[in-house]
């Protein structure tokens, strides 16, 4: 058995990095007692172009489960989405998927 490190082992950290950066980021909306259910549904339709049924399901998840993942993608995309959601007054955060 050779004790010399195989080339593949040398590359391993890079591979791990790459896999890590492929993990998507998430935009999460949190429940709050002020925003109206109708308004939140309307915002999901307006911002993401979701059909009404999907927007309503997400709104109900936010309301009943306390939060919902409303979008996923690159970190930049999720920060952009969260910025727009903040412009509508929704309580939204960015998080790496884990």
């Amino acid at each position, binding site marked *: 058995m050779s004790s010399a490190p195989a080339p593949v082992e040398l590359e391993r950290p890079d591979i791990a990095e790459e896999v890590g950066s492929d993990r998507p980021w998430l935009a999460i909306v949190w429940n709050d007692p*002020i*925003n109206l259910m109708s308004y939140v549904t*309307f915002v999901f339709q307006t911002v993401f172009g979701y059909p009404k049924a999907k927007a309503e399901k997400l709104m109900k998840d936010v309301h009943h489960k306390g939060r919902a993942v409303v979008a996923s993608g690159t970190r930049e995309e999720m920060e952009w989405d969260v*910025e727009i959601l*903040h412009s509508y*007054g929704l*309580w939204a955060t*960015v998080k790496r998927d884990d």
Partner: protein
Amino acid sequence: MRVRKGRHDAVRIRFEPEEAALVRTLMEQLLEMLGEPPAADDELAAVGITDQVDKPDDPVLARLFPDAYRDDGEAAGEFRRYTEMGLRDGKREAAGVVLATLADVFGEGGPAGQDGGVPGGSSGEVELTSDQAQAWLRALNDIRLALGTRLDISEEWYEEAERLDPSDPRMPMFAAYDWLTMLQESLVRAVW
């Protein structure tokens, strides 16, 4: 207050003069809280960046500009540095649309809203384009967030408000919040 759909996605809202005065006063308070836009010679501000990285101390501002990362203070600060100024601009702009469209019908009004507006104090109808209605929705939501945060509104607020003593000093704020909720609900339905 009565909201109805107009032609070409327009929305019409009929207000009593005191209702228009209430919306105006609350929008003016929102603008005051948002502060002045940055000076024209501020180079970073000119491209939408500030050195503001900490969450505002005021609970209302903290609610209007929440942290975008829950467990990463540094990332939250960077996000704030690059976005808060633009967000403040957007909120000022939306409140400005509300004030301008109200002024078209009810006049400018006094600085503290003493002036009812229309001579004789009759009701008036604001006509909004679809874009203006969107601005109204966002601005109304901002003042509901502001009032609701000050009142420490919970999911059960309605029951709490009903049990409140009529002489409680928070009563007018609860009444305003309740009315704004109805207005926003009607406007969402009209715009949808």
